[in-house]
């Protein structure tokens, strides 16, 4: 999977490159709009990560030019300006998804995976990690054959964690996928934390092996701690 990162801020592009390479993506970096446009139209990529505020040629312009050239590579827009107009312009210009800076890396990874997966149906009705089983159709959760009573939100959080098992799930992702709230309101973070504590009480506390972990300052993940 090849990803082109068009980003002028060196620290950010370096972090993106290293982070994405750790996830086994092949990453190219372009430091301004012109170079990014040339690379994206010349080489083939599976995804373009595009910053909107670029020196020389701005991101929207690059995006429009790419789409004008019939380049259909999915484009993921990153924008520092949390302005609705920007988002609308970006999506109208042919962007497939966007994230507002500062974003969390797990969130970005999750969205990239979703974008690359797009088009492929996910028929999974049953999720499993070790002895934790989840039946989405019957809305049943068991661990070591023991049935667990989960509330609606706890169920959805667990589903989200299981779908991304082994990877960090950020609060943003949970807010969006479970609570369907785009912008994070302060109270929601507390709600997520409390719900997570309760979920942990149910799926981990009675058992010796802990499956649900918190990564301080980043989010949560289910599974073995990635070293």
């Amino acid at each position: 999977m090849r990803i082109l990162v068009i980003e002028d801020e060196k620290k950010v592009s370096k972090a993106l490159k290293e982070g994405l390479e750790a996830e086994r993506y092949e990453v190219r970096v372009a430091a301004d709009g012109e170079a990014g446009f040339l690379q994206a139209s010349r080489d083939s990529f599976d995804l373009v990560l595009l910053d909107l505020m670029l020196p020389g040629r701005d991101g929207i312009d690059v995006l429009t030019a790419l789409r004008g050239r019939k380049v259909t590579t999915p484009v993921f827009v990153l924008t520092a300006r949390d302005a609705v107009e920007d988002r609308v312009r970006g999506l109208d210009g042919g962007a497939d998804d966007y994230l507002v800076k500062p974003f969390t890396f797990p969130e970005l990874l999750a969205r990239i995976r979703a974008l690359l997966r797009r088009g492929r149906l996910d028929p999974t009705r049953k999720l499993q990690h070790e002895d934790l089983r989840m039946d989405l159709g019957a809305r049943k959760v068991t661990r070591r054959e023991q049935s667990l009573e989960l509330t609606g939100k706890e169920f959805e959080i667990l589903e989200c964690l299981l779908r991304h098992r082994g990877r960090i799930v950020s609060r943003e992702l949970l807010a969006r996928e479970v609570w369907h709230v785009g912008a994070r309101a302060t109270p929601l973070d507390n709600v997520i934390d409390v719900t997570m504590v309760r979920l942990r009480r149910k799926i981990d506390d009675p058992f010796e092996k802990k499956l649900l972990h918190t990564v301080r300052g980043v989010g949560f993940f289910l599974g073995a701690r990635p070293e």
Partner: protein
Amino acid sequence: MRSPRLSVRARLALWHAGVLTLIVCVFSGAILLFVRASLFEGLDRQVGRALTTIDWVYHHEPDEIGDLASESGIALFRLTVEGKLQYQTEGWERAGLARALWNPDAMPPSSWAAPNGPWYRVQAISDPSYQIVAAIEETPVRDTLRTLAAMLAMGAPFAVGLAIAGGYFLAGRVLSPVGMMADKAREITAESLGERLPVENPRDEFGRLATVFNDTLARLHDSFDRLRRFTADASHELRTPLTAMRSVGEVALQAPLDPGKYREVIGSMLEEVDRLTRLVDSLLLLTRAESGSARPVREVVELAALADNVAEQLRVLAEEKQQSLNVQAAVHVDAVCDPDILRLGLMNLLHNAIKYTPNGGAIHVRTMTTSIGLPSIEVQDTGPGIPAAHQARIFERFYRADPGRGSDSGGVGLGLAIARWAVVANGGRIELESEESKGSLFRIVLPGT
């Protein structure tokens, strides 16, 4: 007079002078006409008297008629009897007054200009048998009038000049408060907004102007103060996580640590980043709201459903503190507002209530219609209440009734500010009823359908 280059003072002086000039001209003309009329009346009386004397002498002492000129000073007359010239004075002939008699019958007083220059006032009395015509020279009267006119004509420009000077001086006097106000206003800067313009008489025009200006200054002062406070608070709130990040990072770099410790340190720094992000997001929301670029949509919202939904979202927080969270939702309370913004506002209000209510307390959320039929939502808690002194400012950004209770409870001090914005943006208002140690009641009142 509309010329923008002239000062108000000069314009006032010019208007003043113009009006005064007009008055002087009209007045001078009137004087001239009046004096002329009365002088000519005097002349006519004189001629009339002369005619009476001649008439008397002609009837009683006809022989004496030749002496009249020398004895009575009646130098210009003529007597005709039966159409024939009986007598005429020497001066009469010399002045050529014979030609003035175009009307041989009795004639009213009239002026006649002799061909050689002087004007004469001529009057006659007639009888079928005789006619007497007398005249008197108008020169002295005309000289007097000419002198008067000359004096008036010379005086008028002088009066006008005086009027301009006086008007300019008076206008300066009258406008001097304006100059003083301008000077004073120029001295007032952002640093000295506490100063005020002097108000000498609050009831006159300038006093009212100064009062209005002072009111504006007061409002400006107030908003500057708030901005200054906000900047100080905001930089404090921004500096706190930055300080935490810096010190945590620096301490971690002092000595080599094992990976687990590094993970802890980085995690702790990321938490601060999270806090900063939340702060910036909230500030951005409020700033955008204030600049008016966030345009709320207008749709009919069922308040009961919204209140239920928000309460369900936050219920876990109340449960953690063993609080009872009750929703009493009257059905069919509809409001016209932006549901997302209102939800955000209510969420912040309810979160605030949960945060400040002690463990085991009770929180009530009610939707209802007010006595005048407006849709409203109440959030009542059994928290410590808000002292009256803080109630007016509790909705300000970063304002905390208790300075000791701050970031440790997780908030950034913007929840109520966001709540108020959310309600005001929807055309509603937010009310607070609170008493110390008796809890608080926040009431959102929205426009009806």
